[in-house]
């Protein structure tokens, strides 16, 4: 398969990239890791006039924390970097759990977290993880930067709110108010397949009590699902068999799965409840052990 014809530019600065996007007038696409865009080009689902390859832009491959604990992930930070990151292992359990489950190891060498958010595939892992964490996307355009919460950034399947001349330059996870806990579980028929269902749980704990909770779901709706009621059921409470069971039930109710070749809607709902319960039970066990 060959992509359709396009013009190709590899700018050396963000400003140059933005002016190229402006010149493209809505018919330009940003190329970062390319692990979704290149297949889309080959399948002729996308046929931009201009590709703006940002891989040559300096200084965008970082992931680091500010002094206040805010985590920033640059537009060229690859999944593989996050998978191997000591920083995530030490301080971001939900992200660390997800990083090794994105696509397959070879794809992870190229694909990027920010690109995954922009692509906004309902079965993308990072959109669920970042939604659960209350993260946001920083977009840069000709008129400066703006910060957009991930829950507002993704507007539907393969849709985001970026202007045609804006580049998503980084993703941001706010500093935690408590001790981070949580996880990410995904059911896939084989490595690299689209998710049958996935659940991201991001908690902040004070002792055994939950001070902040986020739960978001992968692959069980037309877009990433923010299970706000399920998360709210945990805040201000300790993790007990009852609170865990409530949250798991509410998360499965928030899912909007469709029956397909990966499983029935009822099966996918069941998976969501099981995953949320499993993650919360593990967190509960850990926090009880720390308190003891």
């Amino acid at each position, binding site marked *: *398969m*060959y*992509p*359709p*014809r*396009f*013009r*190709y530019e*590899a700018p050396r600065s963000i400003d140059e990239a933005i002016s190229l996007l402006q010149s493209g007038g809505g018919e330009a696409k940003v*190329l970062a890791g*390319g*692990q979704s865009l*290149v*297949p889309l*080009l*080959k*399948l002729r689902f996308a046929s931009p006039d201009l*590709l703006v*390859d940002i*891989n040559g832009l300096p200084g965008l491959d970082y992931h680091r924390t500010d002094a206040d604990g805010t985590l920033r992930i640059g537009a060229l930070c690859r999944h*593989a970097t996050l998978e191997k990151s000591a920083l995530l292992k030490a301080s971001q359990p939900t992200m660390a759990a997800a990083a090794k489950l994105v*696509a*397959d*190891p*070879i*794809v992870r*060498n*190229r694909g990027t977290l920010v690109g995954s958010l922009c692509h906004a595939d309902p079965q993308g892992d990072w959109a669920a993880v970042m939604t659960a964490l209350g993260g946001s996307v920083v977009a840069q355009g000709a008129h400066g930067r703006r910060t957009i919460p991930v829950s507002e950034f993704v507007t539907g399947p393969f849709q985001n709110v970026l202007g045609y001349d804006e580049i998503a330059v980084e993703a941001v996870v706010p500093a935690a108010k408590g001790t981070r806990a949580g996880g990410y579980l995904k059911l896939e028929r084989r*490595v*690299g397949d689209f998710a049958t269902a996935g659940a991201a749980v991001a908690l902040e704990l004070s002792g055994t009590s939950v001070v902040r909770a986020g739960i978001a779901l992968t692959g069980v709706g037309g877009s990433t699902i923010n299970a706000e009621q399920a998360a709210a059921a945990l805040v201000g409470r300790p993790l007990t068999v009852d609170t865990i069971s409530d949250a798991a039930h509410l998360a499965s109710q928030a899912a909007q799965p469709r029956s397909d070749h990966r499983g029935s809607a009822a099966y996918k709902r069941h998976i969501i409840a099981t995953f949320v319960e499993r993650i919360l039970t593990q967190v509960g066990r850990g926090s009880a052990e720390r308190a003891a």
Partner: protein
Amino acid sequence: MTSLFEEIHEDAPADVPTRRVRITVNGQPRTVEVEPRLLLAHLLRQGLKLTGTHTGCDTTNCGACTVLFDGQPIKSCTMLAVQADGHEVTTVEGLAGPSELHPVQEGFKDEHGLQCGFCTPGMMLAAKALLDENPDPTEDEVRWALSGNLCRCTGYQNIVKSVLWAAAKLRAQQA
């Protein structure tokens, strides 16, 4: 210089812009003129006649087209040739000289790591990248590292054995 234009797009109008790409393939600097939409896998196979890189699924699933890009395995059907400008690419032809075998190749031979052989180049390059980073992997680590490469013949058992064989041989060589 290798021109790819006529070979790949016979119907292309004459005014399609091409770009000059300087790329090091298996240690040799090459300069090619390519249409931006040309995929790296096609540059390697049709342009540079390095047909050891296979194109299988063509949809980023199977990993038969895996090559090393600055030492890291990537799927060459999912990268544009223009993106390789200024970079180093290693294909299966670059694993060892024409009359010798890389320990990974020896391992696949010794442990019967292939049947039809279609997935083998990608498997071997993914394995080499693993062993460069982790000279003494567990079986689980080998399976994990190869999980982006599909084999439809072997059931993977002998592929994993082959990589472990190569790891032991490389460690013995270092010792």
